[in-house]
């Protein structure tokens, strides 16, 4: 029954045998021990499990591990290895810390990865653009305001580093 998959995760290749029904999020968390990706709803609605699959923000609770075969996946644990980060904290991670963009922290990894996707396409998003881009990621603690500040902070920083 088990299926062979090859996935690059946070820059490292992984060859695994997985059950066809195994969710990507459980593959990341239970098989590989990357528990920074959280499960919040199992129905694609809350965004806590957001990871980057081939640079696109994807909710890993409704994607199968077999669907990631051949893909490049970035989780929160690997974000420091992203090109903008240079081995340190990614500017979005820095922004969330600097601007108090998190309280309980449960939505944070997904929120950060969704923000990375936004900023890679648009380093200076307006407030409305940020709100729209993060509409698929729920936060129950912050009221979103400091998350918006965090994304703005990171956008400025990323723009500065590109120059």
């Amino acid at each position, binding site marked *: 029954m088990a299926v062979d998959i090859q996935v690059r995760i946070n820059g490292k290749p992984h060859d695994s045998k997985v059950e066809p*029904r195994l969710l990507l999020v459980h593959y990341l968390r239970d098989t590989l021990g990357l*528990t920074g990706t959280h499960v919040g709803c199992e129905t694609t609605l809350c965004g806590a499990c957001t990871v980057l699959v081939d640079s696109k923000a994807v909710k890993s609770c409704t994607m199968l591990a077999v669907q990631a075969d051949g893909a490049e996946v970035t989780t929160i644990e690997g974000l420091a290895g992203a090109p903008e980060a240079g081995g340190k904290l990614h500017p979005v991670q820095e922004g969330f810390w600097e601007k*108090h963009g998190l309280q309980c*922290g*449960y939505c*944070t990894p997904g929120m950060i990865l969704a923000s990375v996707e936004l900023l890679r396409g648009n380093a200076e998003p307006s407030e409305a653009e940020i709100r729209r881009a993060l509409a*698929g990621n729920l936060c129950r*603690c912050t009221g979103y*305001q400091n998350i918006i500040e965090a994304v703005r902070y990171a956008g400025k920083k990323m723009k500065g580093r590109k120059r």
Partner: protein
Amino acid sequence: MATATRYIGKPLKRKEDPRLIQGLGHYVDDLRLPEMHYAAFVRSPYAHAKVRSVDVSKARTAPGVVLALTGADVKGAIGFVPCAAQIPDMKSAPRPVLAVDRVRFVGEAVAVIVATDRYAARDAVDLVEVDYEPLTPVVDPERAMAKGAPVLHEPYKDNVAYRWELEGGDLKKAFKQADKVIRQRIINQRLIPMAMEPRGVMADYKPGEKQLTVWSSTQIPHLLKTQISVMLRVPEHSVRVITPEVGGAFGSKLNVYPEEALCGYLAMQLGKPVKWIESRRENFQTTIHGRDQIDDLEIAVKRDGTVLGLRCKVIADLGAYYQLLTPLIPTLTGLMMCGCYKIPAARMEITGVLTNKMATDAYRGAGRPEATYFVERAMDLVAAELKMDPVEVRRKNFPQPEEFPYATPTGLIYDSANYQRSLDLVLKNSGYTKLRKEQAQLRKKGKLMGIGLSTYVEICAMGPSSAMPAGGWESATVRVEPTGNVTVLTGSSPHGQGQETTFAQIAADMLGLEPDEVQVVHGDTAAVSYGIGTFGSRATAVGGTAVYKCLEKLRSKLGQIAGHILGEDPGKLVFRDKKILSKSSKKSLNFVEAVGAAYVAKTLPPGMEPGLEAVTFFEPTNFTFPFGAHVCVVEVDSETGDVKVVKYVAVDDCGNVINPMLVDGQIHGGIVQALGQALLEEAVYDENGQLITGELMDYAIPRAADIPWMELSRTVTPSPVNPMGVKGVGEAGTIGATPALINAVVDALSPLGVRHVDMPVKRERIWQLLHKPSGRAPAKAAPKKRRAR
């Protein structure tokens, strides 16, 4: 000894964050042990049914399954789910951890499966055959009270759990002297707390050591430890509860749930670690709900706007069973029913009703948002009735700043406040006068713009033990390690509030150190002295004060040691820049040298014990009463009924502030949770008792795009009831904001003769108000009504 404030009051970045932003924190589901087993529950699809039989035989032989147990299997071994609240003559409503012969709400567990893999456990749930005999469900609380309604808990004859009354002042006189009596039914709908992290439990038993360890996503590790010990009949010193990272709670984890005891039991039975992680659907069905009150209000008022008396009859829907504080929550509404007004007479009558739903319990605000909501609606009803500005009605009824401490007719002593000042500031910051002019212009054009005001007071820092069901104090231990690092152990186990940072700020300032030199430990009952927990906006005011008192003791001891070594008067020493120094002689001792002296114990003053550790169990003398004033501006689309919040301005006063960035964060989050209630959220059970808002697909919590930018500022009125003058802030936004928004919506619709609308103000509800035959629909909208959705 004076305290330098290098860190207290500063927006220090959180010490918690580096691990959380890198995915290095550990919530319960992130923990794993060798030979991990997983539990899954079989839950009732019926709201009310007899359980004729539960057949787990097929599940028992399914691949990976090691154990399948029914209610009958564990009946004698595990005690009932605990309730700490006692109200005189209250009916009992005992809940077994697994239903035995009857289920009383959708989601109530009837069997548990344990397997070696979470998928296998879930698969086996479907193999359990339960024979239910459906009974008539009791869903509507008013019908539940009626004669002849099916009874949930026999042998009782009805579903009224309790009646509770509170009266103060001369109510008869108030209503006799009134020029007008205004009546309004106000509904505070049922809500789902929806912490981002669902509940989760992991348990491990070491038979050799006789040690049961339970990891749980909870607000109350110590109380949970005691209850697990009682429920499982295991000596309390054999139980250890560890609360790792908690992904939000909002009151929903201020509880003891069946799964927590059951996982402990299963681990003991199997001798293997057992984990259960709640699904979101389970979270909606079986984690406590909030609010759910029907408030019938009568306001006695004089022609000039002076409120003479307030009477409120409350029907509180408690659900099927009592969770930890279920019956108590509505009584908090009673205590706070007069809000921030000098209302001389008040009466509250609560009827707590049992229905076939999940229990209600403490949800952010817990009883106080209900009071604030109706008293703030009351002020606007008075204003509308007397054609006064809502600002003037409020001013007329505020107690004056010099009247504090102020005694309410409900028996509380408000500690300190200046309601006029927060109101003045919010009016200024929002440009209230200008907003009213704009509104007049827009009304001429047929536009529905509304301005809503809320001036609130809340009760925090819960609380003196005399007023709490199970202890209102908090513990702290502060230990200065031999190398000079500081460990703060607190009973206030957080779930996002940031105590690791704020308590480190307090300790750093008190000892003249850096916050990085302070480590705050919480949530492990084997490490931390018995504590109460984080809820009721108590962490800083009660838990923080316990830390403060420990630091005072340590300063006194270190001062004596340093004074002895330096030959200085300990009373004249200060702690600064990692030194203990004399201001007059400039002589100083390095902090770490004084610490070393305490442990090496060769140069201590005669008779002094060695070591540097202080323990405090702080008992507050009173609650604290934060307050504030909010202005909300909305636009109502006269065609679709859509309510858009265009401006939100808040002034909050939580006394002295330890970390302003964290305080603002609490207020942002609180306001948005309140706006969620006012705009979107509603837990709906159908007539069969099915939770039809059972998923995030059907229950809308605010998304980033649903809410406005919030403009915050604050006034500072220190509390006299604790040495740091702090009040608490965790629930302020949730308490202040719902009435501001609803008052704005009613204000927008007031040209149509609308004087009240219930939450949530979903489009269809507003559309119906705009288009009901008796209402005067705006000229432009009326002909198009068939086009609206």
